[in-house]
């Protein structure tokens, strides 16, 4: 596991777009306490920006009215929160037992050889970024890839090759 405590600041103030603002206001009413909004709000940030920057966390904390450190805790705890910019296609490779046994490493190696992409990195054209994640919960159909929220099951190098072709 890696240290996620180093946040990246964009230098620009963060603000929800109008769409996400209304979404936030809608969601906030669903919860008995405003603090419950931390996770949904972070999701909204990630939807808007693709990743969560330092300013965003501060913004979310102020918006909810809680301690920034609390939002910070949540953002660093959940690895689904991208704390650094990702490419257009954010590829998550499950690295937990079943997927590993069923050949996750070949897929990772393929990315390395083909796109010069190693886990935690983004390609230079900002198109792909790769990440190894913990169990995605589809062990029955390992190995699993998750790309921008979509699941791709029973993967192997050939399938990945075809898949990538559709993205280009």
């Amino acid at each position, binding site marked *: 596991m*890696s240290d*996620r405590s180093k946040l990246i600041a964009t230098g620009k103030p963060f603000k929800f777009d109008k769409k996400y603002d209304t979404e936030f206001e809608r969601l906030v009413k669903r919860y008995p306490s405003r603090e419950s909004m931390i996770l949904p709000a972070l999701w909204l940030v990630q939807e808007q920006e693709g990743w969560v920057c*330092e300013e965003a966390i*501060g913004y979310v904390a102020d918006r909810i009215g809680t301690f*920034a*450190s*609390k939002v910070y*805790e949540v953002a*660093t*705890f959940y690895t689904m929160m991208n704390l650094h910019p990702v490419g257009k296609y954010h590829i998550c490779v499950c690295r937990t037992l079943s997927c590993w046994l069923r050949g996750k490493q070949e897929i990772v190696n393929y990315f390395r050889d083909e796109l010069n992409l190693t886990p935690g990195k983004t390609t230079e054209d900002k198109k792909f970024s790769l990440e190894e994640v913990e169990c995605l919960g589809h062990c029955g159909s390992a190995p699993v890839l998750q790309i921008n929220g979509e699941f791709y099951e029973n993967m192997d190098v050939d399938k990945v090759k075809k898949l990538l072709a559709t993205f280009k």
Partner: protein
Amino acid sequence: MTEMIKLFVNGEEVEVESGKNLIDALEKVGIEIPHFCYHPALGADGNCRMCLVGIEEGRPPVVPACKTPAKEGMKVLLDADHIKKIQHDVMELEFINHPTDCPICDQAGECKLQDYYMKYEGTESRMRVPQVKKRKVQDFGGGVIHDQERCVACGRCVRFLRQITKTGELGLVNRGDDCRVEFFPGRPINNRYGLNVVDLCPVGALTSADFRFKQRAWFLKRAESICHGCSKGCNIMVDHNKEKYEDDIIYRIRPRHNEQVNGWFMCDAGRMTYKSENDNRLEECTLAGTVRPLTDILADAQSRIEKASKALFLVSPSASLEQLVAVQALAEKTGAAVSAFSDGYIVKDDGDDFLIKDDKAANRTGVDLLSIAKSRTHFDNMAKEADVFINFDNDLSRSLSEEQIGKLFKDTWVLNAATHPGHLGTAMAGKAGASVALRSWSEYHGVVVNCDGIAQKFVGGVMKNIERPDIVEIAAGLGSPATGAAAAWALVQKKIPALAEFGSFLELPAEGVNLTDNEAGK
């Protein structure tokens, strides 16, 4: 009286107070259950798992003592093999990433990890993989230095800042073995109670930048005292030490637990009051600009008081009851006026609803109890009449400007007995009079009454190389009937009957005597 219940610890019957959790209840009767994250002021968190105890014939069989209330007939196991193994394993886990830098760690000597290692583990590490490296010296703001590697992630600091000060600067970020305490970038600790996290930290992860590397904990001598920084009267422990060939100096001030006054905490400003005890102290006794022995000065002052048409004594609202009474008795004998004028000690809107008070005088309630006048008009009138003025450590420069002081005592002979220079401002510096260097509160014993009317004793353990007199001694030297600490205490008892039952001030209970119901309230 709280209700008592009986339970069994390791098969032996123990009687404890009900309504408490096992850690607190058993600690009262001297049985220690190891714990990191639990703190009586912060409540149970249950994350460290060190306080797991066995419950015989119970469900579940192993419970965290911090979250388990003591119940009648409970059979607690502390030294069973499986409990020992749990403690051993928890300790081993804590040590996986803990750097062994006790030699440079300020906490060494008062560190729970050290203590528990010696008590519960004591084996060599089995880890052969490199430890997780984290940041070493991190400034948390507010004078707190953080060492992430030493942290055991108990979260006491986080909970203190969220529950007590409600500022929540710190959070436990990341997870697993990367978990660490951090503040959100740009929002470091910024409150007036921040240094309490240093005391709360059971290990050396949070250290005080002020105390850092100054002295090792085991060299420090402790004196149970009362903070003189404001009228709250927080109970403190004065940690001082006299290095070879050097003066006895205070290295730090820590809060001492007293539930009815300050709980477990104190403010940062109070902690820093030790600096003025160490530095910039008045050292010499002078008479008309030349250094003279104290006896000469007192003899001179005494003859002047006798000749004077009117003398005025100004006492400090931070002085102890004994000192106040000694000066008062002296004034009664010589027909002098006593004032405790000290408007400048009150700093408007500085206080809060926790520990910091507006009034920066430690014993104003005591002044009121002894019915010493403290109004501006009384002081002004008396000052105009008086031709001898003796200031007993009242920092008049707080209340009046230099010109005002100079004007008031233009033709008056002034004896300034003070702990620090500048109490009468620089205007008085050139004036022919006398000045006496006094002992400060860390050097004498006494009793002060705080803003809530709680009389508390304090013990001064610091022994400076330069011997200075106490106000009681000076008053006695000027002819006060209170010839010593014991005589002064007897006078205090005469004036404040609520204290009459205590033969000496040392017999006051540690938690103080609440005078509000009878004396202070009238």
